[in-house]
């Protein structure tokens, strides 16, 4: 197996036991992802999008097959090694934002840097920059419960990008947002992908997201049904016509 890809999965299988039954969530999925991709995993509910995202994000391990993420075999990682990989190199964006309720916006974004052991002055600088990228520098002192859905998701994006990870995994990032906020969020992520070269992988069935992605992988019943490169979006930005 070559390790020139950012992510490489080979015959990835994930099954779950449900009483007497075995549910196949992923069925021999083989995919490669390169640096700076802006890719969407699409498909109906239960097609295996989130499961694939979880394995690539080292939150879960495959039943069989292999997933190599940034040169590390996910299935061989210990809990500590997986946590370290997530901490250093992977950012997560969740459908329900998952902000820490007792922290301010600034502290939520700063949190991954604290875990990485960055110095206070460096943390402050990087956190402020991340909040400026997502246009929320003025809400730094607010608490999550004082933000709208769109603002909360932008804080989650800032938290994911603040440590400048090579990979950001976004699970249904627009599912709880209206159209305007969805476009705003997607434009922000697209800009980060372009400016920082961060790879974004989305799990989504939202057409608004599909309008932005440059690669669309369709999963059906845990298997890759289609893997297509999409037309580039207009240079002035916004969704593909």
């Amino acid at each position, binding site marked *: 197996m070559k390790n020139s890809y950012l992510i490489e999965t080979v015959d990835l299988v994930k099954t779950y036991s449900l009483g007497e039954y075995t549910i196949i969530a992923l069925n021999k999925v083989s995919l490669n992802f390169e640096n700076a991709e802006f890719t969407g995993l699409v498909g109906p509910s239960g097609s295996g999008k989130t499961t694939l995202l979880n394995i690539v994000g080292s*939150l879960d391990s495959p039943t069989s097959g292999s997933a190599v993420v940034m040169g590390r075999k996910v299935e061989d990682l210990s809990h500590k090694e997986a946590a370290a990989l*997530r901490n250093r190199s992977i950012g997560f964006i*969740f459908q329900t934002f*998952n902000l*820490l*309720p*007792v922290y301010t916006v600034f502290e939520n974004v700063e*949190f*991954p840097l604290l*875990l990485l052991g960055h110095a206070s002055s460096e943390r402050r600088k990087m956190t402020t920059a991340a909040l400026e990228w997502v246009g929320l520098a003025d809400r730094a002192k607010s608490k999550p419960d004082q933000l709208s859905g769109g603002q909360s998701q932008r804080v989650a994006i800032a938290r994911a990008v603040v440590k400048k990870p090579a990979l950001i995994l976004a699970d249904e990032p627009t599912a709880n947002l209206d159209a305007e906020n969805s476009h705003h969020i997607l434009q922000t992520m697209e800009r980060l992908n372009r400016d920082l070269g961060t790879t974004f992988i989305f799990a989504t069935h939202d057409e608004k997201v599909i309008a932005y992605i440059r690669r669309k992988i369709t999963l059906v019943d845990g298997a890759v049904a289609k893997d297509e490169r999409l037309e580039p979006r207009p240079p002035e930005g916004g969704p593909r016509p």
Partner: protein
Amino acid sequence: MILKLALRNLLGAGLRTWLNVIVLSFAFMAIIWTQGLYEGMNDQGRRASVEAALGGGQYWQKNYDPYDVLSLEDAHAVVPDFLRSMIDENKATAVLVVQGTLYPQGRIHPVLVKGIDPGQAVLTLPAHFLKTGEDRLPALIGSRLAKSTGLGVGDTVTLRWRDAKGTFDARDLEIVQVMKTVVQSIDQGQVWLPLERLRKLAAMEGQASLVVLDQGTVEHPPVEGWVFRDLDYLLSDIKQLVQMKSAGATILYTVLILLAMLAIFDTQVLSIFRRRKEMGTLMALGFTRGRLIRLFTLEGALHGVLAAAAAALYGIPFLTWYARQGWAVPESMDSYGFAIGERLFPVYGAGLVAGTTILVLVITTIVSYLPTRRIARLKPTEALRGRMS
């Protein structure tokens, strides 16, 4: 970082946290308050007994056993030269103990008849009242004995005793003083006479049952026929009594501690159940399970720290005031057997406070840790979905 997060989470829980903290701080205070009372009881009882009866230790005639009245017949001997010289230098005082019976108003009342030098300054016993003329036999009794026999100052009562040769004899005594002492052994059942008069009456010239040393006497070489009893030995009764009563009080604060711990345990279980998503998020951000366990344990353990702080806030002023003011001992305490006087002054030592703090913190930490063991089985994906594996 974990500390900051734990503190934020804890304070963020609002009323639940403060209820737990307040209950725990009550338990904290109850332990320190009651233990302080018993420390004070021990301290006061010890001091009063030492000053009025025990001195700095005692030499007992080898047969002397205060718990065996029948042995008193043989428990007397001529005071040896070494002890006599100490008595002459006012560093010790001799006491002769004889068994006797009082006949107040026709009733029979067994007593210990004790002879003491009216000029002694080793004990705070008001022996100087016994300095009277030879025409009468003066006696000093405690207020309890006075009450139980109906005797008062100036009253005359018949005393019967048995002398060294085994002959019964009797004389009328005159009560010259009813002393008020907090040492119950002195206060009831004892009649004090001038030492030389008792020696003559009992035909025990130059003899004593025990010799009480002055406080601060360091040397106590072996004396043939006599046994030295140090304060540890002499005070063992008081210590045992206080320990027994202190053990009874532990029931009160054990219940309080259990209530507080149950509340903390419950809060921890609830917190872990409610915050599964948050745990999943923290894991996604790079928290290991070990770190999560430390975070939740710390959150629980901080209840103990906050309780200590809360207890200090209202406890220090209260206990300081209380230690100065003392506690007016109720009448019912009179029968407890403590030499503590009318007011009991609690003693809140640094050891007691530090020991209690450590005890509460250790128990809180253990109780906080137990529910977090579930986190060790937690899968990040399940947690993110709000499930507990």
